[in-house]
């Protein structure tokens, strides 16, 4: 089926085209900063996409999602520090650890609803943050420098910035595709049904707790992968990645772009980081503008940018 030529689809198409052309543009003007900024945008968009899966479609407002960024990053960092550089080992292990921790956190947190859930995910993320701070062997508060990126033999060289960017972009698109397949499957319908009315879904025979837990683990794993990429991108990992304000930033990205919309998190991440660059260019105290702006967005533009583009207001 051809997608309709709406304003929203045109913007998404242009955005994707722009993302594909970023390395070309960076090479032409010889500016590595642009490529680095956009690598960061793509990686964070992946984290935001995974948060959107549980928050936008599943109604589970996790205020601790940045923890998985740190977990994925720390697995890569610690293994590299101990001399294990192979990406074939680092990456699956990072995903496995992210999934396991998401499973345990989900198992405990999903027993609760609403505000309790928000606060509990926040508290667990804070606990993981403190574990990072107390890792004395691995730099504790100061973090850990990663001297060599994950090695994939002759398959792919992550030290090449352009190659790395395209890898991140492909993985982002793969995550968006995965989320799209998930939310349109029977599983995704059950998740969205449980968001609207958990008790009713349960009554017609869906084991909603198991469904929501699975969804929570998938999101944590995708975000763990984003953490792996982030650590490889910055060649560094520190507890600051898991600070609770980072989790707040991820929520802002998702809501800014549009909750429960496929490309919303990507749009939101681009808008968030562009806004950050722009405002911090105006004044050193840019958050004094950004904070009230956030308040205004909540009060007056609830569907996010995607909602504005589609011309409908979510309620």
């Amino acid at each position, binding site marked *: 089926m051809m997608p309709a030529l709406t304003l929203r689809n045109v913007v998404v198409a242009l955005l994707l085209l722009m993302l594909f052309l970023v390395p070309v543009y960076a090479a032409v003007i010889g500016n590595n900063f642009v490529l680095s900024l956009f690598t960061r945008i793509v990686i964070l968009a992946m984290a935001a996409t995974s948060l959107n899966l549980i*928050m936008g479609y599943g109604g589970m*407002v996790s*205020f601790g999602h940045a923890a998985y960024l740190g977990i994925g990053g720390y697995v890569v960092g610690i293994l590299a520090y101990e001399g294990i550089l192979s990406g074939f080992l680092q990456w699956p292990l990072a995903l496995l650890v992210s999934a396991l921790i998401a499973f345990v956190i989900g198992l*405990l947190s999903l*027993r*609760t609803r*609403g*505000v*309790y859930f*928000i*606060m*509990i995910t*926040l*508290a*667990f993320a*804070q*606990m993981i943050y*403190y*574990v990072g*701070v*107390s*890792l*004395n*062997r691995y730099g504790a508060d100061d973090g850990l420098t990663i001297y060599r990126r994950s090695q994939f033999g002759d398959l792919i060289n992550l030290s090449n910035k352009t190659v790395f960017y395209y890898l991140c972009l492909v993985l982002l698109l793969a995550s968006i595709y995965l989320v799209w397949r998930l939310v349109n499957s029977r599983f995704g319908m059950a998740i969205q049904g449980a968001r609207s009315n958990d008790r009713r879904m349960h009554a017609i025979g869906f084991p909603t707790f198991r469904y929501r837990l699975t969804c929570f683990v998938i999101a944590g794993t995708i975000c763990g992968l984003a953490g792996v990429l982030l650590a490889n991108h910055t060649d560094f990992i520190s507890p600051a990645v898991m600070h*609770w*304000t980072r989790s*707040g930033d991820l*929520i*802002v990205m998702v*809501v800014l772009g549009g909750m429960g919309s496929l490309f919303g998190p990507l749009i939101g991440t681009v808008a968030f980081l562009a806004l950050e660059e722009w405002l911090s260019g105006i004044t050193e*105290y*840019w*958050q*004094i503008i*950004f*904070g*009230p*702006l*956030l*308040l205004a*967005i*909540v*009060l007056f533009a*609830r569907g996010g940018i995607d909602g504005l583009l589609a011309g409908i207001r979510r309620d």
Partner: protein
Amino acid sequence: MLLFVEQFLNGLQFGLLLFLLAAGLTLVFGIMDLVNLAHGSFYMLGAYFAATFTALTGSFIGGVVLALAATLLVGMAVEVIAMRRLYRRDHLDHVLATFGLILFFNELVRLIWGPAGMNLTLPSWLNTSVEILPDVQYSMYRLSIIVVALAVAIALYLIVMRTRVGMLIRAGASNREMISALGINIKLLYTFVFGVGAALAGLAGLMQAAILTAQIGMGENILILAFVVIIIGGIGSIRGAFIAAIFVGLIDTVGRAFLPDLLKLALSPAAAATAAPALSSMLIYLVMAIILVVRPAGLFPAPGSR
């Protein structure tokens, strides 16, 4: 024994500070159904106001009173300007909007007071130690924190349970449509409760500032602990917040003090030295997890809570 008494009192003092913070949070949540992340900002503002006003007036008590009044006013202003529009929204909106407020207040403090922290100097009559047991000295200031916080807790209990305003607050918590239909100015009541909650947080902040320093972001880490307190105690319950706050304060302080020695009994000294800091900072979260498994709505869920 001596160390234990001191650590126990420190834990009690920290728990009472947590209670001051959690009380405002749980009142606002219980009555207005509002999640306020920016509550920690009032904690920070209280500390900065106290440091400034003490330096200006030259009197500690004068500084404290002015700081409390200022935090109360800021709290009421925030309620009128922003919070009032958020009551009908869902919790995600509360989180986002108050997250924006945190960024705003942190940056505002940086702009006004600069990035370095501020010290709140104690008057000499507080900066001494007293003999609480034969041969056991304890900081006069920490002791007075315990006394003040306990007095506030008792006053809060009496106000909520024994006065007309308290009756309105409790009535508003269980059915806000009904109470406004009965001719009570619910808007004014909300502004008042929010302001008092802010002032309580400010009181906790300024008392802590004399032990540590007033610095940017000081409210956020302790806010998360206050959340843990509310989760354990049950959202909306002041009694639950009180018991949970003491509990968390004691576990955290006593755990940090004695866990390294306890671990040395079971593990090698090297392993104990690595595991102890991680484990003692995780301790209260583990306790929270266990309590949640047993009682998902906390130990003392407020009657009629959603």
